[in-house]
């Protein structure tokens, strides 16, 4: 099967492309910067129709990961990449004769802020999702699932908090903060959250491409996670340990963190350096994510995709620690 992976320069996108290559798929990748992967590569912007047309030519299936991922920023830019980009890709893929389309989404598309305790995959809702990223991802998931039709099977997969060796998005930021002495817990980090070791996200996405055309699969959204809820405190502590960084010791109350996020978001909006200032240190969205439970009912996902996570949390932390060890001891030392 010839599979196009968009966003392969990202942490998960790269891992998916490598996973597909290892499994013997014919892989094409599409992203802005060079991926360094041993496969056919198209470089350019996801909203550029010419680039996209080139990428989808001769493709059987698409795994669409390219997205603007950030906790703050210009909403129009989120819409351009996440919503318009997805629409353009779907149109091109269908026109080029692809039969399967996996929309990589996020559980936050259905999260209105209240705790998710053993939740299923509720419908995406751009009206209630919090933050530009979640709202535009909700919109794009709805667009993708609406495109599901005979001959063009669409599945939305929502991996929750993917992490592993080489992850700069989640683990990298946590470790950077821990090293800077700025990693703190909210409400003692007591909320239970479920995460996904990258290997499991990859195998789930491959399984979803394989099963996309089945009756029970296409047209639906599935949450993917390790199914091992842990407290935020334990996850952050073990990530910090794996990297040899200081463990989080301080905790702030949720209300204070939320307020800090509220102020920071507004301050960053008027930041003299604009987007170059990076993400604000705290946002209301981040405060909610770090202080409320999110863990999921995985039974339907596992049954329908015929998939099970193979790398448990212990093994995940072990691999993370091994990776940080190799970083600390350069080969030429």
């Amino acid at each position, binding site marked *: 099967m010839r599979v196009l992976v968009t966003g392969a320069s990202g942490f998960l996108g790269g891992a998916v492309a490598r996973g597909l290559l290892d499994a013997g798929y014919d892989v094409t990748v599409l992203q802005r910067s060079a991926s360094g992967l041993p496969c056919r590569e198209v470089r350019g912007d996801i909203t550029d129709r010419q680039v996209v047309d080139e990428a989808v030519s001769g493709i059987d299936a698409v795994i669409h990961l390219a997205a603007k991922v950030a906790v703050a920023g210009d909403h129009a830019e989120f819409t351009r990449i996440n919503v318009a980009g997805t629409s353009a890709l779907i149109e091109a893929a269908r026109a080029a004769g692809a039969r399967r389309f996996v929309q990589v989404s996020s559980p936050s598309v259905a999260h209105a802020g209240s705790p998710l305790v053993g939740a299923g995959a509720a419908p995406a809702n751009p009206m209630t999702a919090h933050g530009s990223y979640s709202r535009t991802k909700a919109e794009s998931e709805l667009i993708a699932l609406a495109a599901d039709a005979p001959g063009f099977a669409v599945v939305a997969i929502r991996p929750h908090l993917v992490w592993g060796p080489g992850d700069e998005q989640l683990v990298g930021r946590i470790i950077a903060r821990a090293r800077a002495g700025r990693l703190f817990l909210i409400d003692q980090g007591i909320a*239970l959250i479920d995460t996904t070791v990258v290997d499991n996200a990859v195998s789930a996405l491959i399984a979803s491409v394989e099963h996309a055309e089945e009756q029970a699969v296409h047209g639906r959204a599935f949450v993917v996670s390790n199914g091992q809820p842990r407290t935020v405190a334990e996850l952050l502590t073990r990530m910090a340990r794996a990297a040899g960084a200081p463990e989080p010791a301080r905790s702030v109350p949720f209300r204070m963190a939320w307020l800090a996020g509220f102020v920071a978001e507004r301050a960053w909006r008027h930041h003299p350096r604009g987007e170059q200032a990076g993400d604000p240190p705290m946002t209301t969205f981040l405060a909610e994510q770090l202080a409320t439970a999110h863990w999921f009912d995985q039974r339907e996902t596992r049954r329908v995709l015929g998939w099970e996570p193979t790398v448990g949390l212990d093994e995940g932390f072990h691999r993370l620690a091994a990776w940080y060890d190799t970083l600390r001891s350069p080969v030429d030392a």
Partner: protein
Amino acid sequence: MIDPARVPPPGLPGLDPRWSRLVQAPDFTGSLRTWHLLDTHADSGLGDPAPSITVICVHGNPTWSYLWRSLLAGAPRSMRVIAVDQLDMGFSERTGVPRRLADRVDDLCALTAELGITGPVVTVAHDWGGPISLGWALRHRDALRGVVLLNTAVHQPAGSPAPSIIRVARCRPLLRLNTSWTDIFVRGTTRMSRSSLSARKMPSAVAEAFAAPYRSAARRRAIGDFVADIPLEQGHPSSAALESIADGIKGLDDTPALLLWGPNDPVFSDRYLADFMERLPHADVHRYERSAHLVIEDAPRLVADLLSWLAGRVEATPQPDESQPDPQSAARAPSSLLDALLVARDVRPGETALAEMSARGAGSRVTWQALGDRVERLAAGLRARGIETGDRVSVLIPPGADLIAVVYACWSIGASVVIADTGLGIGGIRRAIRGARPMHVIGVPAGLVLARTLAIPGQRISSRALARICEEGAARAVALERPDAETEAVVVFTSGATGPAKGVVYRHRQVAATVGLLRAHYRLTESDSLVAAFAPWAVLGPALGITSVIPAMDVTKPRTLTARALSDAVSSVNGTVLWASPAALANVITTQDRLSEPQRRAFASVRLALFAGAPVPRASLVAASSLMPNAQIRTPYGMTEALPVADIELSGMPAPAKTHGVPVGYPVAGVDVEVAVLDASGRPSRVLEATHGVTGEIAVRAAHIRDHYDRLWATNRLASTNPGWHRTGDVGHLDPDGSLWIEGRLAHVIVTPTGVLTPVGPEQRAITLPFVEQAALVGVGPPGITTPVLVVVITPTTRRRTRSHLLDADRTEQLRQTTGVDLAAVLVRRDMPVDIRHNSKIDRSLLAAWAERVLAGAGG
């Protein structure tokens, strides 16, 4: 006002619009009226098979057919459920014609004729729908297969005032104000509703749905008419109709009946239930503790219970019937409960039957002669005071000579004693005794004050009057009688560690079987003497025919037993058998340093020490063993419903690290133990098996198990799933040797996506770690996909100064390894929620709810 019938607006929670029908039928005046009704078979075509039973539901005032939505939703296709909106109520036509009770019965009969309903039919009704449905039932005896009544009435019991709420509502100036001009009555009815589980109010969308047909004063007109039609006074136009129904239902003695009741109803209180139980003595009864008037809304289990009862009517299979004795014992025999007492009085009249220690040292002694005489006279005296065979007598006397005399006197009369101990807590005692509805209360002065405060019904007799009652009885002196062995002997209560306390009813033959089993299993003979420091069994000495002593303690507060008091009790009768609760033992061990050397030596006479009632820590048993060097230390396993079931000796207990539960030993001779294997969703199978190594709900069969639960039809049905067996609600397994292991309560089984976990094994392994004092394994999350969380109390020296409930990552990981469970988190508490009676049974359900709230984080 005249207003045509209509269908309810869309979107009312739980209401399927496909159920709604508008049906025309003549009313009592002969005019054609349009009804709105809900019908599960509204859409059925001509070719569909006829339903095997039709259920006709009649709402009361001021509700509408919406009340029955969950019943319609849950009914199988073979059951047709029709729920009507009475004329001028709900979404039925507003006719402008006031209707009285008899008219409403006529209306309903005409409607069912129009619908072509023939039979078989079961009527289900709530509130003032009750008399109307019964009026219908009495006119359709051929079709009738059952009647179900929820919080209703057909009769104002003589001598008791009508419910004050209704009297106030009936007061002329207020009637229209409450009912029609404002929606106070409509709103008030739903506002009183609380979930009996969570005490949460009715969701506002549901309350709105109840109010939906009553938005304007004109549409509420019939609500006032309904209240005005309640015949509170003589000569009321509806009195005759109601009386005729009330008398008529006495003839429904061959019709199955089910009474489902919310006892917290300020209108239709327990006394109306009692009235129905007199009229329909064969009825199945279930009281949903902590539920009120809208019992179907308050009690989450009611609809499932009702559906299973209705299914029984379809199958017409005989249900286990609590009012009928076991057919095998149909050959009636006199009770043997008083035999040992009578024999001892004849054979060794001067020997001590009972010693009661006082805090100041030597106590009082009663000989067999004196005890026998006192019981005989008291029985005659109490009879003279109006206590009769079959009456229930609540006894509020602490264990001691008075209690024992009263209990045996009641048994001799054939009256049943209701024993609610202070271990239930005040609220628990109130619910327990009011639920049992005793006709008499005999109590110490404080007990009678309590009875008055708690509004416990019945004649009150002070224990101070017992001497006078004995004198009165002496004049009538008749020999002790022995009631029939099937006579109800006692109502005792479960500790309520897993829900409200349940009344457990024993007949004479079952108490006698318990006595026989204890005597045989522990080889009790006349030469034994019993030190009774365990509340429920402190009264059994005379039935065993052995000398008993009650130590100076509050037997219902086990922690008040000191080592010295116990030693004094043992030495007073040369005690050979000791029976105490684990909490009492704990205090004895704590206070043993204060024993003098002779006091310590007194324990040498004890040959057998039994500790029962709750799990006993092994260390306590070891300490007991060193205190009583000649005693075999045993812990019987059992429950309020059957004791003992099994028992184990200290020397036979394995070290906890290797166990998958708590070993409770081999079943006692005469007791069969099997398990109902749990499936992947944690439900026990219907069939029982004796296979070893599989975890299931433990079931017990023996002559001494309880007869039934009091007024808890659905609980009885579950507990008696297998005829002759008692389902204990405990889960565990049998090992290859046939020894029984307890793994927890059925209600505390943790169902994860990957399988079923029982709590006790991991908890036992957790407490092997030095920093863990107590541990409880609970599941958080929705049913079926809960994730395991361990809650611990850690030793004071290892506590860290933190406000967090989270245990640190290292010790969390250590507990994962030790328990072998993939714990999502380990939470720390200062103490555990435990039951009042034993002060040791951890309420894991409460802990699970707490853990889920904590781990939900902000907004949880």
